[in-house]
């Protein structure tokens, strides 16, 4: 008699656990979907008495939107390229020839988590807004600094994903094999290492894109006309367009991260930060 009671208890406690899991999930889903649903609802209401995509039309028709958007995309792509050019050789050499430097490199790549963006831009302005290091004199030179800072902000993600990629493919064996076949290091890097790092490079790049594309703080204080400041301004000045913009931004982020999942099935190692 007692035996079957015990087993019934085990089964009901497993069922209870599952019930709680559902409760947690549903409540969580509500919390996360509600703001999106509300925003989407607003974005459809720009025209009186009917639902439609007027807000989106107006957003894309705004003379300032597309220039800001395209400038941000160019900035993001430039930052990604710069970051890869800096990180891949560094991670490669640190793995292969300079293991003593690893802790230093790891420490530096973590700095963007330690220095808040607003502090970083504060320091940049103080450092580069007067001679001898006058780098923020014109809009375009400031833009270059902005791109460089974005590249630096991407270090934690790009380094981690490249480092994981290098570990996964056994760089040493590949390098030695290539060397024994007479390849020089340039060939090794561009013909052997890069192609094998495709997934790592792509996911690092996409994550950087997601973080940089709508960045506000640094662009704002460096007076850049990019998407972040544009959106902040829009939120203050317009009624319906900001909702369309938020939905577009959410879709963009979703696309970038969805692509990461797609290219890097099973690959771990992304975290986030820096708001």
């Amino acid at each position, binding site marked *: 008699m007692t035996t079957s009671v015990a087993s019934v208890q085990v089964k009901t406690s497993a069922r209870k656990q599952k019930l709680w899991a559902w409760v947690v999930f549903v409540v*969580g889903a509500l919390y996360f979907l509600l703001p999106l649903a509300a925003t989407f609802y607003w974005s459809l209401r720009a025209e009186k008495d009917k639902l439609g995509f007027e807000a989106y039309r107006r957003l894309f028709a705004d003379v300032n939107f597309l220039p800001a958007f395209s400038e941000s995309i160019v900035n993001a792509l430039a930052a990604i390229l710069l970051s890869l050019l800096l990180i891949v050789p560094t991670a490669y050499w640190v793995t292969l020839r300079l293991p003593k430097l690893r802790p230093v490199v790891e420490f530096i790549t973590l700095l963007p988590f330690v220095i808040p963006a607003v502090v970083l831009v504060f*320091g940049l302005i103080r450092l580069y807004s007067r001679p001898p290091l006058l780098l923020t004199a014109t809009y375009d030179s400031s833009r270059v600094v902005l791109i460089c800072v974005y590249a630096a902000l991407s270090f934690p993600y790009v380094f981690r994903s490249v480092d994981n990629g290098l570990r996964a493919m056994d760089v040493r064996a590949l390098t030695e094999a290539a060397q024994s076949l007479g390849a020089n290091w340039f060939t090794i890097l561009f013909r052997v290492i890069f192609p094998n790092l495709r997934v790592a490079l792509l996911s690092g790049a996409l994550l950087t894109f997601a973080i940089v594309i709508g960045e506000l703080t640094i662009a704002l204080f460096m007076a850049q006309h990019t998407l972040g400041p544009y959106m902040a301004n829009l939120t203050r000045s317009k009624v319906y367009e900001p909702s369309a*913009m*938020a939905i577009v931004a*959410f879709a963009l982020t979703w696309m970038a991260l969805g692509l990461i999942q797609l290219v890097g099935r099973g690959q771990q190692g992304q975290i986030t930060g820096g708001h």
Partner: protein
Amino acid sequence: MNSSIGTDTRSNNKIVGGARRPSRFQIGPWLGVLPFFIFSAMFLIGPTLILGYRSLEGTDGALTLDNYRQLTSESVLSAYGMSIRISLTTAILGGLIGFLIAWAVSIGGLPRPFRSLTTTFSGVASNFAGVPLAAAYIFTLGRVGVVTALFKLLGVDLYRSGFSLYSFLGLTLVYLYFQIPLMVLVILPALDGLKREWREAAENLGATPNQYWRDIAFPVLTPSILGTMILLFGNAFGAHATAYALTGGLFNLATLLIGQQISGDVLHNPGLGYAVAMGMVVIMALSILVYSILQRRSERWLR
């Protein structure tokens, strides 16, 4: 394993014999990493050092700790206080809720697809910060937000009864939107690290599920949970964009205070501004340090 290359070349030289070359210093690798160091010095380290240096400069240009002493002045302390309060609250709440969600989709027994859905969504939501997030909340819980309107239909006027999106409570709700997903992402691997055999061994030795959670699962997870909460603390503490977009930069928060100081010397003392910024760096550095110590400890267990 890491250092074996050096010894390899040396032993090769010996075998080749004859002309004993001095161990040759290779310039290539150093040239390969040099751009990284120069770049980091220019865009990460330099800007921080200059703030550190200026924060030690008095009005007369001499080195002094005066600026740091003034951190206890009312205006600075209240901004730091609010930042710390919000960061602590969202770290603890975000940590607990994120843990529950991670539990539900892993151990809780929800069907497999819910888990990948949750991780993908968490990746998106933890990056969905700044202006779009602020905007989404304005449309939800702002004065004319959808939820505010729904409450009005039910006869509750949120803003009359003291709620405001532009307050401590409002900002907490907004921050949780990226804090909870971050917790989910970081804590899921730790939950996966709980081995099925531990539960079974405990059960086998006569323990109830509660005893298993109390004596094994929770103690094993504690370093990860605490560490991740500290990470969340830093994440909220350094956040600027979301609060700026929500409040126009006028809320009493450390990051917003620094922003105001950049635009115009609101503290009426540039040196104090630098000290406030450096204070933030110190707090962030401490939280990352404690995080990595705790993380290392839990990795040792969860190997």
